[in-house]
Every structure is written in C-alpha cells, then in structure tokens.
C-alpha cells in the first residue's frame, strides 16, 4: 500500500505544481532577425526570378503601429502594398501568415495577391503578430486577434470600408481570420479566404494520437475554426493542398468548408499541393485568377 500512497502523493504534487503549457509552442517565430529582407530573403529565391510580380515604385510601405491586447501594448511591424492615398477606394486584402518565421518569408504570397486579377489591382496589408519578426512581445492565441484587429483599425482610419475588406488566412493565420470574420471588432470583412486552415486544436490532437483526445489534454488553446465558421455569413474561398502533410485536407480544411452555411463558398483543391506550397503548385497565374474571380464576384 505504501507504493500506492507514494504514487498518489506524487501525482498530486506534479498536477498542482505542473506549470508547463504547450500553448506558446503553437508559435514558431524566428526571433533572430534584425531586419526584414523581403525579396532579398534567401528563402524567397525560388520566387519570380524574372521580376514579373514586383511592387510598383511608391507602393511598398513598411510601417509600425501599436496593438493593445488586454492592456499589453506592443509594437507591430507591418507592410502595406498599394497606394496609401487610395485606401478609401481600393479593395484591400489583409494577409494573416502562418506559424513560423516572419512576414518577409511570406512576401511572395503577398505579391501574388497584390497582382491578382491584373497588375497591382489590390492593396495588401501583412503584419507580424506580436513576438514574430521585429514585432515586440510574446504571441498568444488571443493576442493574434488583437494584433490583426489593430491593423484593421489602421486601415479603417485611412478610409477602408467593410465592403472592400477581404480577410485572408494561411494556416495559423486562419485563426484570427475566421474569428474576426465571425465576430468582428473594428470592421467586418466582406469576404473570407482561407489557405490550408487549422480545423481545430482538437483535430490536431485527435489526428495525431489516433484517439478521440480533446485539446485540453495538451495545451491552453481554444481555436476551433470548424465550429466558429458556422457563424460566418460572408462568402468563403478555401484553397488546400490535397497532399498537405501537416494540416490534413479532409480533417482540417474540408471540415471548415462543410460547416460554412452561408450563401456562397468555393473550394479550390490542389491535387499536388503540400502545406507550404499550394499557390505555387497550382501555378501562380491560375491561383491569382481564382483569387480574382472570387473577390470580384
């Protein structure tokens, strides 16, 4: 019996002293950078060697803004591609990037969106969430929403209106995209676009373990896009690589798509796309056309 008591004592000790949380590990930023390299970033060397997708002179605007999350104010680094003077009449895509590195690694994707449907047709705003790149602070699931919302407010202050605001979320970026579309703060997006989105943290744990395990077994994470998408009334564009070896096409992306119940939605499966390369495996021009067709509809 002594062993039983020992086990009980030890389990209680560990349970109540246990302070480890896997939540912050959802984020994988590179905190070593000292500057953004944009198209000079070696990770972007694969993209556009002929400079077909360059940003027009005067339409690259790197800036910072303040973001307040529950009283914690941090400096968010962001870039706006487009004409600052015409935000009050342009259609603007807010691009929310994935869980790793920093925004200049995602710069080619922003370039494609900027040129979708014709040269420099859309404005694109991309930011580093707090704790990513040069943005200060530590990221958390809920602070993603505050940081993206601060960027929406920045656009609103410059004349953007809801009918011209498009929300685009890739992977981790699908969390603020879906939540801020379902429950808007500064403004409600007109349309929602998701690339290789996270279905839910429970989907991750269930798929990974092979058992019906809730996410609370692993971390203080709440994201459940599969449920949250039910509140979204805006049109939905969903693109996902069918070979996605990280966030499964069926269990993550398609589950979100199926639960979207409003008037219009379009699925863009890319048969040979993996998690990080879907627009490029689809083909840049084809991808940009599909984006354009969805937005102009």
């Amino acid at each position, binding site marked *: 019996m002594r062993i039983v008591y020992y*086990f009980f004592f*030890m*389990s209680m000790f560990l349970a109540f002293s246990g302070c480890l949380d896997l939540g912050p590990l959802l984020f*994988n930023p590179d905190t070593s950078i000292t500057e953004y390299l944009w198209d000079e970033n070696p990770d972007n060397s694969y993209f556009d060697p002929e400079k077909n997708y360059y940003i027009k002179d005067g339409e690259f605007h790197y800036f910072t803004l303040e973001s307040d999350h529950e009283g914690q104010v941090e400096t968010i680094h962001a870039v706006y591609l487009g004409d600052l003077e015409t935000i009050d009449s342009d259609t603007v895509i807010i691009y929310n990037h994935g869980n790793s590195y920093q925004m200049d690694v995602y710069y080619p994707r922003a370039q494609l969106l900027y040129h979708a449907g014709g040269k420099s047709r859309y404005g694109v705003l991309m930011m580093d969430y707090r704790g990513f790149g040069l943005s200060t602070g530590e990221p958390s699931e809920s602070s993603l929403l505050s940081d993206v919302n601060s960027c929406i407010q920045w656009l609103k202050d410059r004349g953007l209106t809801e009918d011209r605001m498009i929300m685009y979320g890739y992977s981790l970026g699908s969390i603020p995209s879906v939540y801020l579309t379902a429950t808007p703060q500064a403004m409600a997006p007109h349309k929602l676009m998701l690339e290789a989105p996270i279905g839910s943290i429970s989907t991750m744990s269930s798929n990974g*373990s092979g058992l019906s*395990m809730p996410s609370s077994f692993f971390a203080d994470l709440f994201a459940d896009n599969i449920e949250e998408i039910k509140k979204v009334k805006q049109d939905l564009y969903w693109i996902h690589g069918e070979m996605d070896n*990280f966030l499964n096409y069926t*269990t993550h992306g398609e589950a979100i798509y199926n639960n979207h119940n409003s008037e219009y939605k379009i699925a863009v499966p890319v048969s040979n796309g993996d998690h990080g390369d879907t627009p490029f495996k689809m083909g840049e021009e084809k991808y940009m056309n599909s984006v354009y067709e969805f937005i102009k509809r």
Partner: protein
Amino acid sequence: MTKTLPYFFLMIMIACLTDCTPARFVKPLEKNEWAIGANAGGPLIDLFGTKLPVPFSSLYAGYGKTDRLTIHGGLHTTSLAYKTLQLDAGASYLIINSAGSIPGISVNGTLNGMFDFREYNARVYPNLAGNLFWDDKYGRFYCGMENWIDPFKNGVPDNSTYKPWTPAFYLGETLKLNKWEVTFEYKNLAPYTSNRGHVVQYARSGKKGAHGIYLSIQKRFGG
C-alpha cells in the same frame, strides 16, 4: 519556400499520450511479489530531419496477487507536468508458463485514464494485450499484440475518422540481474493507420504506422 516547422513539443506530447509505455508484466510476478519500475520512450518522430524517440516517461508498480495474476498501475509523469493526469491500472494473467522452446502465454488488460486540469475533460481507454514469452538464462524474450479501444465515438472532431480499435505489435528482450530487470522493446504502432497529414511527423518510410522504441528498468521485491 515557406515551410512550416513541426510544432515540436505539441507533437511529441500528442504522440506520447497514447504510446508511451512498453508492455508490462509480460510474465506475471510470483505470489506476494512486488515490483516497481520506470520506463521511457515512445514513437520515433522526424524532428528537423533527425529521427528521435519521444523521450517520455512513466513510473509503475505491480503486485503478485497469485502466482498467475499480477495487478499493476502506472503514473505518466511527463503528461502530468503538462497538467494532464494520466494513470493506468490493470492486471496481467499467466495462462501457461514457458518450457524450453514452448512459449509462455499471458494476457493483460489495462485501463488508461486521463484527466486534464484545464477543462477537466476525462477519458478512459481500455487496452488489451496478449503475449508470448520465452525464458532463458539471461532473461526473457517476448512478443505480443496490444489493442487500444476508443469508446468515445462522439469525441472525434467533424471529418476526423473515428477508430474504435488501434493495434500495435511488439517484441522485446528483458535482461535479468538478480532482482533487477532491464527491458528493450520495439513496437510497430498502429500499422493500419495513416501516419500522414497531421501535426505529428512520425518517422516511418511507409504511409501507415510508426516505429516505437522503449527502455524499462524494474526491481522486484519479496515473493
């Protein structure tokens, strides 16, 4: 090309909860004999191009209720540090003892209970195993099959496949030194389940299952 890195700890934690123990009491203890032990290991995962076993651990104890029946329980220590209490309790029963080249046969039934201190979710997964073992002068060689049963059909998120049964096959060698025993075990985990398309990047060339390796140290008392 943008490449999302593995969610390192989240990944190994998810991998571990289901697969972090080797077979226990393949040959049951003798009557009134006690044993305590510790084990570490789990599925091999791909991490930054390197294949690593999940370094998770548990502590366990067993008691020989009769010469054939051993009751046992375990505490999964690493899970607990992450606010999930994972305990297992079960019994191992000797059907026949080994004799020369004739293997001994035992069966083992275990309930794996998990409870988190975040949202107070709880799960209990039964596990049934059958073992063959051969005693020799150095220790014991064994092999067997275990079966995880998932009774929580409604706990699976939309579009995820409910798998009521997940098997694993294993073989191991126990080296004995007086009352001490050291066991090395290999498991072929979930060989009928796809290992692609999710956050855990299992290190396996095929599209199904995972390799698992484990180390146990045990000491016996009394008897």
